[in-house]
């Protein structure tokens, strides 16, 4: 298991998949607080002769901007990064070769999933901490509790999308076949979220985790509001892992 896990980390690092995702997180962690701090100056530079008055940026708005960008662009990069994690290896014969070694099928999947989750967790925590500290140095301190809870929301949602990508990658034949439905589901779930946002159903919907980031940062929502969407998302993650593992264990490689 350790051997596979280390192989997965090294192989994906050298193929620039993991660095690409981490660089995107880093990019937004540095750029968003800076952009918000100097937004007035940037606008006045480009719109000479016009007077545009923007409200003073708040630390919460800067941190939320980082979280929002990661929840869109960051997650799309993640989908592209992860869509081939199993499908590509099935397609080029690596899976067959690996499974002709003393490696169980569940072990094979677990190593991949653990490596992916590790990169997401470490990357998101590190970059969020950086974005928080950088925001603090430029604009003042955002609410710490709210920032931590909002980051956890993003983290769980990102893991949820990563698990969907992983499941499609396990069930389907090629990376493109895996990436397509994941992206479609990602956009579709965003649209559904807009439609149900004010209904009770929103409490049981994973995208609510993203909708709660703003109220958590502004202290208009509390940890208790996370209970249901967090529980539902976690259950969905576990179910998808079980589905992928069960199908893979029966798969003719």
């Amino acid at each position: 298991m350790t051997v596979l896990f280390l192989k997965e980390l090294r192989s994906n690092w050298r193929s620039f998949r993991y660095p690409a995702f981490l660089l995107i997180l880093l990019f937004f962690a540095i750029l968003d607080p800076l952009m918000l701090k100097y937004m007035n100056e940037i606008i006045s530079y480009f719109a000479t002769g016009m007077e545009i008055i923007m409200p003073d940026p708040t630390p919460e708005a800067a941190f939320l901007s980082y979280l929002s960008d990661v929840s869109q662009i960051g997650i799309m990069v993640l989908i592209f990064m992860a869509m081939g994690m199993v499908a590509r290896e099935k397609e080029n014969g690596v899976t067959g070769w690996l499974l002709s070694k003393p490696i169980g099928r569940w072990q094979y999947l677990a190593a991949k999933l653990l490596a992916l989750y590790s990169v997401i967790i470490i990357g998101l925590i590190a970059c969020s901490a950086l974005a928080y500290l950088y925001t603090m140095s430029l604009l003042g301190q955002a609410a710490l509790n709210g920032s931590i809870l909002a980051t956890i929301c993003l983290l769980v949602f990102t893991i949820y999308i990563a698990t969907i990508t992983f499941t499609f990658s396990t069930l389907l034949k090629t990376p493109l076949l895996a990436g397509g439905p994941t992206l479609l589901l990602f956009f579709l779930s965003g649209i559904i979220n807009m439609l149900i946002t004010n209904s009770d159903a929103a409490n049981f919907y994973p995208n609510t985790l993203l909708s709660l980031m703003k109220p958590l940062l502004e202290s208009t929502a509390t940890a208790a509001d996370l209970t249901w969407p967090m529980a539902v998302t976690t259950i969905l993650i576990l179910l998808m892992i079980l589905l992928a593992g069960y199908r893979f264990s029966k798969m003719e490689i």
Partner: protein
Amino acid sequence: MFEVRNLSYKYPRNREMTIRGMNFDIRQGEIFGLLGPSGVGKSTTQKIMVKLLTDFEGSIYYRNRDLKIYDKDYYQEVGVGFEVPVHFSKLTAEENINFFKKLYKNQADTDTLMKRLGIFEDRKKKVSEFSKGMKIRLNFVRAMLNNPVMLFLDEPTIGLDPANARILKNLIKEYREGGGTVLLSTHLMNDVDELCDRVAFMANGKIVETDTPQSLKRKYGESSVEITYVKGDNLQKKSFEMETLSKNNEFFELVRNEKIVSMHSKETTLDDIFIKVTGVESYA
């Protein structure tokens, strides 16, 4: 080593069976050749025997135990070299070896193997920088990582130059001499002739002939003598059966009266048998 009885297999998306009731044994310490045209089911049979395809009919016994009973420990004993060498191209050759060597209780001296196959000097290079031949040689080293007692090889020399193919064939022979057993799938009848103790020819998902190469040559043998001679301004050819040569007056007349350009004996090759038995031209 292996007893395969009434083995049948159909890929989930296929309508027709790929394997239709195969029966064969592989004895300990032999190189058993599985031969047949492309798509006949050789690789599928190997995949079943290495437990990658599990939904088969019939029975396979490995060391007198049902193959289905074995768990992943089965792979501690077997080595597999697939036809298309798959490597982690972003890892070095050494990493490709050492990462997976750790999975085994019994570990081979891979440095010596790499030296013999001429890739030791390049072990620090990423596999993406390797030539096709180097990848094939590395594939063989990886099949031997655990000093297996049973080795599955699918077209091991295809894509290798004659010198490296010779080294690899010598390694396979040494492996057998050390007590190892090999299931070899190939199109190359020269390799079969040189390496295999017994061969099985496949056609239409079945085994249609099993024997030693020598016995098959005897069975299907039609040794003859071919004479090329000058007739008028043209070269003519004529064949005579070897067995009845001493009583063949036409042969003696021809030798006495015509100008002979060449005279060759012709023996049945495995290529001839391949074509005869499977009905398809081989690629050798």
